[in-house]
């Protein structure tokens, strides 16, 4: 039986792998540390959380837009959408 906690969205369904059910909410995920093959990812000797990565990714997009003299209409809403997108492509 699939269990999807309140305030969490299921990941995007790729065609070649099965998707695990969410055990934590979006808000818990965003504050949780990023994990990779070496365990928790560190940045400047601090644990890097998913929210840190979202900020970093958003800044990369903003830099790109700035160099091309483009603007975003609603920055806050866009950041939320971006966070949701990364959340849905990521594992817990």
């Amino acid at each position: 039986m699939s269990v999807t906690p309140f305030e969490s969205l299921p990941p995007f369904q790729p065609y070649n792998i099965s998707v695990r059910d969410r055990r934590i909410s979006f808000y818990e995920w965003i504050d949780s540390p990023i994990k990779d093959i070496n365990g928790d990812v560190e940045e400047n000797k601090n644990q890097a959380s998913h929210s840190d990565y979202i900020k970093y990714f958003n800044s990369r997009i903003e830099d790109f837009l700035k160099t091309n003299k483009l603007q975003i209409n609603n920055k806050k809403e866009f950041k939320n959408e971006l966070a949701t997108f990364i959340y849905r492509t990521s594992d817990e």
Partner: protein
Amino acid sequence: MPCIRKKRKQKTNKIPERINLEQVLREKYTLEDFLKCDKTREILEQNWFYEFNRKYEPEIEKIYESERIYCQENTSTLFYYDRCGSFVSHLTTMLFEYIKPRYDLEFFYNNPNLAKPLIEKMKNIKQEQEEEHKRLIKENYQQHQTQENFSKESLKKFNWEKK
């Protein structure tokens, strides 16, 4: 002996003043006007969509791919479910929705005939405005006249004998 031959009237080639559509478009119409007309707006939107797909989308895809591949190589929790980069279109679609469109009017200046629906529409609007203006003047005049008549009648009814 003086020459009696009549001087032929030299044909003066009247060059019809060519209305330079491009100049008219540049001087008289703003981006807002182009967006008010359905047909020109559609062209502007299509061109922006094409420009975004051609110029900016590949660059955004590059940024996303570099991040995704790095995370995949380290078996990170990030982008875990996007093994082959198939979800990048979600990101580009989202960006297209949020980016302030950059409409390019040069396309119309280079192909002024495409802006004819706008010019016709503006003519119609001007005509409508003129008609509306005339109607208002007529109404105002009529109102004024009825008021005048009323005042004259009231004067007629005035009983001078009582004075």
